[in-house]
């Protein structure tokens, strides 16, 4: 059918000589027109699984991705490979650009979009008019209520997929417990589906957990560690403030290290600059929140530190997965202080609305005859101190109870009894709370467990794991003195006059 083998295409378009684990099987399944579920660890190259088919298949490929920043990073990367027929259509796209690209949809081989765009009937109608050869659901675990990043707006995909006459689906994710895998297939109503599940354990990674008696020990221990091991490092925090503070502390204590912080509160140019500095090895250490990492392709991160434990093992696996993408020996180091539990608890609590808030929101709807979703959203964000996670939860609950019509974003309380509705939503909130707490205790149990960390971590996701290539974990055999990573060369601090700096940046010799 094709003149070239798919290896030829891989080389021609992306410059890679061979496929990585899983890619070939998945691409063949896609090219054969099958529904495909692929669970591949972070960094293993999931995007090639639809980018390559986009070069070969007739028609266009629709990619639904939850994160705007991720989409733009990807598009930039794809364009940098020379594929120009890509477009991202999302709520951030300027209006005139959006209407232009929507009118010319058939021109694009790859169309990236966000779930919220899929309520736009104009857009859906345009999509109906083109030949869609593949329907890609990126970060597919978001569709599962039990996924750790459940996104109610992903539930729309089911209907949209049907409306578009059910083109073959490719669902991609990096973390999915068997429970979640089942949910993905169920939600998308895929009767037949090829599954490609690859183990997510990384044999080049060693696990270390350090329990500290005092919270302040965390930062002094980080300083000691980084003084000894000058390697590309990411440090994860659960709060922006803390990321900034520790970043400042490290800059002060270890001035020879180049440290910066990164979180969702920075503006977009600053974010891009920090990311690229890290990629270009102009930064050694990055203090960040979970906002950093998606779409980061730095292959030589040697050390991933968790200043706080994440709220569940799934996030932990994702985040440590950013270490050692080049397959070389790397270390995950997690700090834990007994009071950290409370931080996680508070985080989880803050993600769900309490009964009073639910009641206030519903009363507002009733008393003011609210029929527009946006109106309720505005009110809810106001009374909840801009808590968008809670808002998404409430929105979903209204949706499944048919009070909210997704297609036209209208609310219809009609004959519903608000007291019943309040308590039933509250019931769901409590259920979810219990579920999240269970997840949190799983994380904490892992920290406290008295057995091999590797075994204890992966048993929740898969049967067995690959033989570690280096040291395994602090329970088995880990010793810092046996870790000998390649260190960053010490760099001299630039104090050149501006015109010298300018000439160097502009790559010219000064006259």
């Amino acid at each position: 059918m094709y003149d070239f083998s798919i290896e030829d295409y891989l080389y021609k378009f992306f410059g890679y000589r061979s496929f990585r684990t899983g890619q070939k099987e998945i691409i063949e399944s896609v090219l054969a027109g099958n529904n495909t579920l692929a669970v591949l660890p972070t960094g293993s190259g999931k995007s090639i699984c639809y980018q390559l088919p986009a070069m070969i298949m007739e028609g266009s490929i629709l990619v639904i991705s939850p994160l705007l920043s991720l989409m733009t990073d990807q598009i930039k990367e794809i364009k940098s490979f020379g594929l120009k027929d890509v477009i991202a259509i999302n709520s951030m796209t300027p209006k005139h650009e959006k209407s232009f690209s929507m009118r010319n949809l058939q021109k694009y081989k790859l169309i990236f979009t966000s779930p919220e765009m899929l309520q736009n009937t104009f857009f859906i109608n345009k999509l109906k008019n083109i030949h869609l050869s593949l329907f890609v659901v990126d970060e597919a675990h978001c569709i599962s209520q039990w996924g750790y990043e459940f996104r109610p707006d992903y539930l729309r995909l089911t209907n949209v997929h049907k409306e578009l006459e059910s083109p073959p689906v490719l669902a991609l994710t990096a973390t999915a417990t068997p429970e979640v895998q089942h949910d993905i297939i169920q939600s998308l109503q895929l009767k037949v589906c090829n599954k490609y599940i690859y183990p997510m354990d990384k044999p080049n990674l060693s696990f270390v957990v350090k329990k500290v008696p005092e919270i302040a020990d965390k930062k002094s221990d980080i300083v000691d560690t980084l003084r000894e091991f000058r390697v590309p490092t990411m440090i994860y925090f659960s709060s922006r403030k803390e990321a900034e503070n520790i970043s400042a502390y490290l800059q002060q204590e270890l001035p020879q290290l180049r440290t910066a912080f990164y979180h969702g509160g920075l503006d977009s140019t600053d974010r891009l600059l920090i990311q690229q500095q890290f990629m270009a090895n102009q930064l050694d250490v990055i203090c960040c929140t979970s906002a950093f990492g998606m779409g980061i392709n730095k292959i030589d991160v040697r050390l991933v530190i968790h200043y706080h434990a994440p709220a569940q093992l799934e996030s932990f696996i994702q985040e440590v997965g950013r270490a050692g993408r080049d397959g070389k020996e790397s270390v995950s180091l997690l700090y834990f202080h007994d009071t950290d539990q409370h931080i996680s608890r508070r985080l989880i609590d803050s993600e769900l609305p309490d009964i009073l808030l639910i009641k206030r929101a519903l009363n507002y709807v009733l008393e003011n005859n609210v029929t527009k979703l946006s109106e309720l959203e505005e009110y809810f964000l106001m009374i909840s101190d801009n808590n968008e996670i809670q808002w998404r939860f409430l929105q979903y609950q209204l949706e499944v109870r048919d009070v909210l019509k997704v297609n036209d974003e209208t609310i219809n309380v009609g004959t519903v009894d608000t007291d019943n509705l309040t308590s039933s939503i509250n019931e769901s909130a409590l259920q979810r709370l219990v579920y999240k707490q269970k997840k949190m205790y799983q994380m904490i149990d892992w920290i406290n467990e008295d057995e091999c960390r590797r075994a204890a971590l992966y048993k929740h996701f898969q049967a067995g794991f690959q033989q570690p290539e280096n040291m395994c974990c602090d329970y088995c055999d880990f010793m810092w003195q046996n870790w000998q990573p390649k260190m960053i060369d010490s760099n001299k601090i630039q104090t050149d006059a501006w015109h010298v700096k300018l000439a160097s940046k502009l790559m010219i010799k000064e006259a």
Partner: protein
Amino acid sequence: MFQYIILYCLNNLNGERSVANIYYLLKGKKSTQTIQDSYLYNLTEFFGVYRSIARSNFNRVIDELAELNYISISGKAFATVNHEGQQNLAQLDSEFQNTYFKGMTYEKHAPQFLATFILLIQTVTNLHIKKSRFIPVIDNGSIQTNVKNFLQNKPLDMSVLLRDIYDDLRQIFSTASFPDFSIDIFVDYLTSANEIGLSQQQIALKYNISKEDVHFHLFNIIHYILEQMKLAPAKYKVLPYMSNQRQDLSLTDSAMVTYNYYGKGYSIKEIAGTRDLKESTVQDHIVEIAYVGEVKWSDHMSDEEYSMIKKALVQTNTKQLKTLKELLPDFITYFQIKLVIALWHKND
């Protein structure tokens, strides 16, 4: 620099406006009130110079100034500059009075120009080392198109282009006297193929100034460049080709529509009628237009009325409408007073 600019603005406002007006001024809010005030109080240079400023950061600086006892804030959030503030202002004057902002002229163009310039340098240096794959640090389609168009029209050897840019910048920096560090900040912010630029946050840390200060340092230079391109384009090799965009009148959209009718000779009443607006709204548009476009006072008042208003203005030396209105006979309208202020201002 931020603190200086706020003190400067507050000082000009003379306690006659609330601090929020400065926020709107820096943001370049397209409202008749903000535009008129910026003319009234001689603050057009700062109009829209910081369109992305966050309210919370603005408030933070106001609080800091109050805490330092540089300003006092009245119940209605009107602020006056205290004695200490005046002294501080005088001190900072020596450092910052040579700023080159021309907000009313370049507010829209300046951010685009900076972004285009940054991306151009990243692109040209990458092309220079034959690297066509890089991730642009400017995440904006229209800026990327600007750069592409610019490069298409200038099929030059990249090393020549880089040398020209370098020479242009040296020329720029030698003709002006920028505050300390300004040039270093500007150079640190540039991204090239061999070095990604520092973020504004990092620059703030490096020079121990606020993030807002960094913004003002950068844009002071950009406004200067734009002005130079207008005044002496022949002295530069590359920059003029990047900045040849038409300037637009700083008018609210609605005033723009009014301007179109007005220019065709429609009366205020007619415009209000066809546009379904209140006459007073259209009058406000006319005042707005008076600052930037063609409006004749003789269309809206008698010679006598005009000279009365003008006299009151000179005598009281205030621009507070209420005071003026009380001083003048009842038949003189607010509209007429505002119009005279606008026209008088323009001829200044």
